[in-house]
Protein backbone atom coordinates (compact mmCIF):
# COMPACT_ATOMS: atom_id res chain seq x y z
CA UNK A 1 0.00 0.00 0.00
CA UNK A 2 1.13 3.49 -0.76
CA UNK A 3 1.27 5.58 2.39
CA UNK A 4 2.24 8.94 3.84
CA UNK A 5 3.46 9.21 7.43
CA UNK A 6 3.50 12.36 9.51
CA UNK A 7 5.01 11.25 12.80
CA UNK A 8 4.39 14.51 14.69
CA UNK A 9 0.70 14.90 15.55
CA UNK A 10 1.36 18.28 17.19
CA UNK A 11 4.15 20.81 17.19
CA UNK A 12 4.68 24.22 18.70
CA UNK A 13 6.87 27.13 17.63
CA UNK A 14 7.44 30.63 18.93
CA UNK A 15 6.64 33.56 16.73
CA UNK A 16 9.57 34.54 14.48
CA UNK A 17 11.28 31.17 15.02
CA UNK A 18 11.77 28.33 12.52
CA UNK A 19 10.01 24.98 12.62
CA UNK A 20 10.30 21.83 10.52
CA UNK A 21 7.43 19.40 9.95
CA UNK A 22 8.38 15.85 9.00
CA UNK A 23 6.87 13.64 6.32
CA UNK A 24 7.86 10.30 4.89
CA UNK A 25 6.11 8.41 2.14
CA UNK A 26 6.20 5.06 0.53
CA UNK A 27 5.61 4.49 -3.16
CA UNK A 28 7.09 2.20 -5.75
CA UNK A 29 6.47 4.76 -8.48
CA UNK A 30 9.33 6.88 -9.82
CA UNK A 31 7.24 9.70 -11.25
CA UNK A 32 5.21 11.70 -8.75
CA UNK A 33 4.62 15.07 -7.15
CA UNK A 34 4.70 16.02 -3.49
CA UNK A 35 2.63 18.65 -1.73
CA UNK A 36 2.09 20.38 1.55
CA UNK A 37 -1.37 21.70 2.37
CA UNK A 38 -2.39 24.01 5.20
CA UNK A 39 -5.79 23.83 6.89
CA UNK A 40 -6.53 26.74 9.24
CA UNK A 41 -9.52 26.71 11.61
CA UNK A 42 -11.69 27.98 8.75
CA UNK A 43 -11.43 24.43 7.36
CA UNK A 44 -10.28 25.61 3.94
CA UNK A 45 -7.50 23.50 2.38
CA UNK A 46 -4.73 25.74 1.03
CA UNK A 47 -1.83 24.58 -1.14
CA UNK A 48 1.44 25.68 0.46
CA UNK A 49 4.12 24.18 -1.77
CA UNK A 50 4.63 21.65 -4.56
CA UNK A 51 7.70 19.59 -5.48
CA UNK A 52 8.32 17.55 -8.61
CA UNK A 53 10.04 14.28 -7.74
CA UNK A 54 12.32 14.47 -10.78
CA UNK A 55 13.76 17.80 -9.63
CA UNK A 56 16.67 17.73 -7.18
CA UNK A 57 16.28 21.38 -6.28
CA UNK A 58 14.12 21.95 -3.24
CA UNK A 59 11.00 24.04 -3.77
CA UNK A 60 10.62 27.38 -1.97
CA UNK A 61 7.64 29.69 -1.54
CA UNK A 62 8.49 32.78 0.48
CA UNK A 63 8.92 31.63 4.11
CA UNK A 64 8.11 28.01 3.24
CA UNK A 65 10.70 25.58 1.90
CA UNK A 66 11.08 21.84 1.67
CA UNK A 67 13.89 19.37 2.19
CA UNK A 68 13.27 16.63 -0.37
CA UNK A 69 15.33 13.46 0.00
CA UNK A 70 14.12 11.13 -2.75
CA UNK A 71 16.21 8.11 -1.80
CA UNK A 72 15.04 8.34 1.80
CA UNK A 73 11.45 9.15 0.67
CA UNK A 74 11.41 12.13 2.98
CA UNK A 75 9.71 15.48 2.35
CA UNK A 76 9.90 17.89 5.29
CA UNK A 77 8.47 21.41 5.40
CA UNK A 78 10.41 24.27 6.95
CA UNK A 79 8.58 27.41 8.02
CA UNK A 80 10.86 30.36 8.69
CA UNK A 81 9.99 33.48 10.68
CA UNK A 82 6.81 31.83 11.95
CA UNK A 83 3.72 34.01 12.22
CA UNK A 84 0.51 33.66 14.20
CA UNK A 85 -1.31 33.06 10.93
CA UNK A 86 0.76 29.93 10.34
CA UNK A 87 -1.14 28.14 13.11
CA UNK A 88 -3.02 25.37 11.34
CA UNK A 89 -3.12 21.69 10.50
CA UNK A 90 -0.54 20.78 7.87
CA UNK A 91 -0.94 17.82 5.55
CA UNK A 92 1.72 16.18 3.44
CA UNK A 93 0.61 14.40 0.27
CA UNK A 94 1.87 12.86 -2.93
CA UNK A 95 0.35 12.22 -6.31
CA UNK A 96 1.56 9.59 -8.77
CA UNK A 97 1.26 10.24 -12.48
CA UNK A 98 0.98 6.78 -13.98
CA UNK A 99 -2.26 4.99 -14.79
CA UNK A 100 -5.76 6.35 -14.33
CA UNK A 101 -5.49 6.40 -10.55
CA UNK A 102 -3.81 9.78 -10.33
CA UNK A 103 -4.95 11.10 -6.99
CA UNK A 104 -3.48 12.63 -3.85
CA UNK A 105 -2.67 10.39 -0.90
CA UNK A 106 -2.55 12.32 2.36
CA UNK A 107 -0.87 11.87 5.70
CA UNK A 108 -2.80 12.24 8.94
CA UNK A 109 -1.58 15.78 9.55
CA UNK A 110 0.48 17.81 12.02
CA UNK A 111 -1.19 20.48 14.09
CA UNK A 112 1.09 23.51 14.41
CA UNK A 113 0.66 25.94 17.28
CA UNK A 114 2.37 29.33 17.16
CA UNK A 115 3.01 31.05 20.47
CA UNK A 116 4.00 34.61 21.34
Amino acid sequence: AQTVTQSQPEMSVQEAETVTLSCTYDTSESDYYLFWYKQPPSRQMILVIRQEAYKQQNATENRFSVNFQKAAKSFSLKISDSQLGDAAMYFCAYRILTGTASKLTFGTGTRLQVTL
Partner: protein
Amino acid sequence: DAGITQSPRYKITETGRQVTLMCHQTWSHSYMFWYRQDLGHGLRLIYYSAAADITDKGEVPDGYVVSRSKTENFPLTLESATRSQTSVYFCASSLNRGDGYTFGSGTRLTVV
Protein backbone atom coordinates in the same frame (compact mmCIF):
# COMPACT_ATOMS: atom_id res chain seq x y z
CA ASP B 1 -13.87 33.54 -10.36
CA ALA B 2 -16.35 31.26 -8.59
CA GLY B 3 -13.96 28.30 -8.39
CA ILE B 4 -15.28 25.19 -6.73
CA THR B 5 -18.48 25.31 -4.71
CA GLN B 6 -19.82 22.77 -2.27
CA SER B 7 -23.31 22.76 -0.83
CA PRO B 8 -24.62 22.63 1.76
CA ARG B 9 -21.92 23.81 4.16
CA TYR B 10 -23.63 22.08 7.08
CA LYS B 11 -26.15 19.25 7.07
CA ILE B 12 -27.84 17.22 9.77
CA THR B 13 -29.70 14.11 8.69
CA GLU B 14 -31.23 11.05 10.27
CA THR B 15 -29.96 7.50 10.05
CA GLY B 16 -31.32 5.74 7.00
CA ARG B 17 -32.07 8.84 4.96
CA GLN B 18 -30.60 9.51 1.56
CA VAL B 19 -28.55 12.69 1.31
CA THR B 20 -26.71 14.28 -1.60
CA LEU B 21 -23.76 16.60 -1.31
CA MET B 22 -23.23 18.88 -4.26
CA CYS B 23 -19.99 19.95 -5.91
CA HIS B 24 -19.68 22.36 -8.82
CA GLN B 25 -16.52 23.74 -10.45
CA THR B 26 -16.28 26.50 -13.03
CA TRP B 27 -12.86 25.71 -14.57
CA SER B 28 -13.68 22.63 -16.66
CA HIS B 29 -11.08 20.68 -14.72
CA SER B 30 -10.84 17.07 -15.86
CA TYR B 31 -10.27 15.52 -12.44
CA MET B 32 -12.67 15.69 -9.53
CA PHE B 33 -12.50 14.00 -6.14
CA TRP B 34 -14.44 13.39 -2.96
CA TYR B 35 -12.64 12.98 0.35
CA ARG B 36 -13.81 12.61 3.90
CA GLN B 37 -11.85 14.03 6.80
CA ASP B 38 -11.94 12.39 10.20
CA LEU B 39 -9.78 13.01 13.24
CA GLY B 40 -6.76 10.71 13.21
CA HIS B 41 -7.30 9.62 9.61
CA GLY B 42 -6.44 12.70 7.62
CA LEU B 43 -8.25 12.84 4.28
CA ARG B 44 -9.42 9.59 2.76
CA LEU B 45 -10.53 9.26 -0.83
CA ILE B 46 -14.11 8.14 -1.41
CA TYR B 47 -14.49 8.42 -5.19
CA TYR B 48 -12.80 10.20 -8.03
CA SER B 49 -13.40 10.99 -11.66
CA ALA B 50 -10.93 11.55 -14.49
CA ALA B 51 -13.55 12.95 -16.88
CA ALA B 52 -17.30 13.10 -17.44
CA ASP B 53 -18.90 9.65 -17.24
CA ILE B 54 -15.69 8.14 -15.81
CA THR B 55 -15.68 7.43 -12.09
CA ASP B 56 -13.76 5.06 -9.86
CA LYS B 57 -13.67 3.96 -6.25
CA GLY B 58 -11.20 5.28 -3.77
CA GLU B 59 -10.16 4.00 -0.37
CA VAL B 60 -13.54 4.17 1.41
CA PRO B 61 -16.37 3.94 -1.17
CA ASP B 62 -18.87 1.74 0.69
CA GLY B 63 -22.22 3.43 1.26
CA TYR B 64 -21.56 6.19 -1.28
CA VAL B 65 -22.58 6.72 -4.89
CA VAL B 66 -21.31 9.31 -7.37
CA SER B 67 -22.17 10.43 -10.87
CA ARG B 68 -20.58 12.78 -13.33
CA SER B 69 -22.84 13.44 -16.29
CA LYS B 70 -21.33 16.91 -16.78
CA THR B 71 -17.71 17.95 -16.38
CA GLU B 72 -18.54 20.67 -13.86
CA ASN B 73 -20.68 18.67 -11.43
CA PHE B 74 -19.75 15.76 -9.21
CA PRO B 75 -22.47 15.01 -6.62
CA LEU B 76 -21.92 12.53 -3.81
CA THR B 77 -24.92 10.56 -2.50
CA LEU B 78 -25.17 8.66 0.73
CA GLU B 79 -27.82 6.09 -0.09
CA SER B 80 -28.79 5.26 3.49
CA ALA B 81 -26.89 7.42 5.96
CA THR B 82 -25.22 5.83 8.98
CA ARG B 83 -23.65 7.45 12.04
CA SER B 84 -20.21 6.33 10.85
CA GLN B 85 -20.65 8.66 7.89
CA THR B 86 -20.63 11.69 10.18
CA SER B 87 -17.64 13.59 8.84
CA VAL B 88 -16.40 16.61 6.94
CA TYR B 89 -16.58 16.03 3.19
CA PHE B 90 -14.34 17.80 0.73
CA CYS B 91 -14.72 18.03 -3.00
CA ALA B 92 -11.64 18.92 -5.04
CA SER B 93 -10.61 19.32 -8.66
CA SER B 94 -7.48 19.56 -10.76
CA LEU B 95 -6.74 20.18 -14.43
CA ASN B 96 -3.76 17.88 -14.88
CA ARG B 97 -2.27 14.89 -13.14
CA GLY B 98 0.70 16.77 -11.77
CA ASP B 99 -1.35 19.59 -10.31
CA GLY B 100 -2.32 20.03 -6.72
CA TYR B 101 -5.98 20.13 -5.98
CA THR B 102 -8.23 23.11 -5.52
CA PHE B 103 -10.61 22.29 -2.71
CA GLY B 104 -14.13 23.32 -1.96
CA SER B 105 -14.91 24.72 1.47
CA GLY B 106 -16.22 21.40 2.76
CA THR B 107 -19.53 20.08 4.06
CA ARG B 108 -19.88 19.10 7.69
CA LEU B 109 -22.37 16.23 7.77
CA THR B 110 -23.86 14.95 11.00
CA VAL B 111 -25.92 11.77 10.99
CA VAL B 112 -28.12 11.38 14.08
